[in-house]
């Protein structure tokens, strides 16, 4: 249940997440936002001496032995040039003592459907099925999603649930070919009618 909430909340659009912005000081990497369902339980900042390349990386650290929920360092960008393309978020993550899990995540939003308060989520992956845990040196991770032509915004970041610390550096957003498999499921619209009820295909 709790883990599901994390998924659900990362799925919640930026606007909702902004309401949770903590009054936290410290050097936030330029262009990045502190979010999550319990951002106050996580320290999120630049780490000037801990870069994989260059000098600095960004880090997220659970406060105390059992921080609640999850925190995420994220940003949102217009879908503009990525519409209709397959997009890969890649980045390098280092981990120390992560008891639950951490992951890169990316979400593609579409227009807000009539009667809804939130934009439609068109595609999503948060590495929950291949989580970063424990302690490890710098390792490259990636998320690959299709950006639908009707996409409006793309959000991405790193999330940490529970105790421990993760560092992130050298992120890249690249348009890739269709030969690169997607890592997350696109959210299909509903079927018109039920299909494949006999599991014969």
């Amino acid at each position, binding site marked *: 249940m709790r883990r599901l909430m994390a998924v659900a909340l990362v799925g919640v659009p930026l606007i909702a997440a902004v309401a949770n912005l903590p009054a936290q000081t410290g050097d936030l990497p330029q262009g990045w936002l502190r979010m999550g369902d319990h951002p106050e339980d996580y320290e999120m900042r630049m780490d000037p001496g801990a870069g994989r390349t260059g000098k600095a990386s960004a880090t997220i650290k659970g406060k105390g032995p059992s921080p609640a929920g999850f925190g995420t360092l994220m940003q949102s960008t217009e879908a503009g040039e990525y519409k209709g393309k397959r997009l890969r978020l890649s980045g390098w993550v280092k981990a120390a003592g992560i008891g639950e899990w951490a992951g890169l995540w990316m979400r593609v939003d579409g227009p807000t459907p009539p009667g809804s308060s939130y934009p439609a989520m068109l595609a999503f992956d948060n*590495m929950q099925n291949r989580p970063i845990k424990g302690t490890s040196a710098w390792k490259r991770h990636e998320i690959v999603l299709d950006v639908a032509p009707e996409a409006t915004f793309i959000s991405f970041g790193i999330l940490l649930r529970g105790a421990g610390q993760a560092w992130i550096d050298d992120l890249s957003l690249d348009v890739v070919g269709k030969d690169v498999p997607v890592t997350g499921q696109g959210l299909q619209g509903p079927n018109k009618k039920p299909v494949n009820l006999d599991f014969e295909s």
Partner: protein
Amino acid sequence: MRTVSRLAVLLVSTGALAATAAAMEEATTPPGWSVAGTHPAEYEMGLDRATRRSGVASASLRGKTPTAGGFGTLLQEIDAAHYRGRRVRLSGYAKAAGVAGWAGLWMRVDGPQGVLAFDNMQSRPIKGTADWRRCEVVLDVPSGARAIWFGLLLSGPGQVWFDDLQVEAVDGAVPVTGTASQR
């Protein structure tokens, strides 16, 4: 009971989001179906060609470990348009092996403001070990319905197979099995 059902509604309600994060399972996801649940990574869900009631395959859900938690589900979402104002029955056949928690068919009718009707067989769960047996969920689809979600769920260790599902409109003589919400 009421609380439990509500929780289940919540869980299945948010399932779609978990689906997006769901594992690329070893088993092949049946075309048209999506993998979801609170702990989809702890369940192997997909086609099973070795065990089936008819044809060449069934859908199988299996808790991967003795401590598989939450639930995993195979689901699909359909447009409610075709069923508005009608009573709809989801039926199918289920076979169980060592289901320590429970399994069931489930169906949920969503309106613009949320869940309109729901049943997941939690009150008459599939448990233990049992040969192919028919089970069903019957709900009214109000005129304001937008979407119908339905699927197969397993909570806990063990394995369950489903085959020969059917979604059909039935007449008012068939009793509903689930609860309608007061929205």
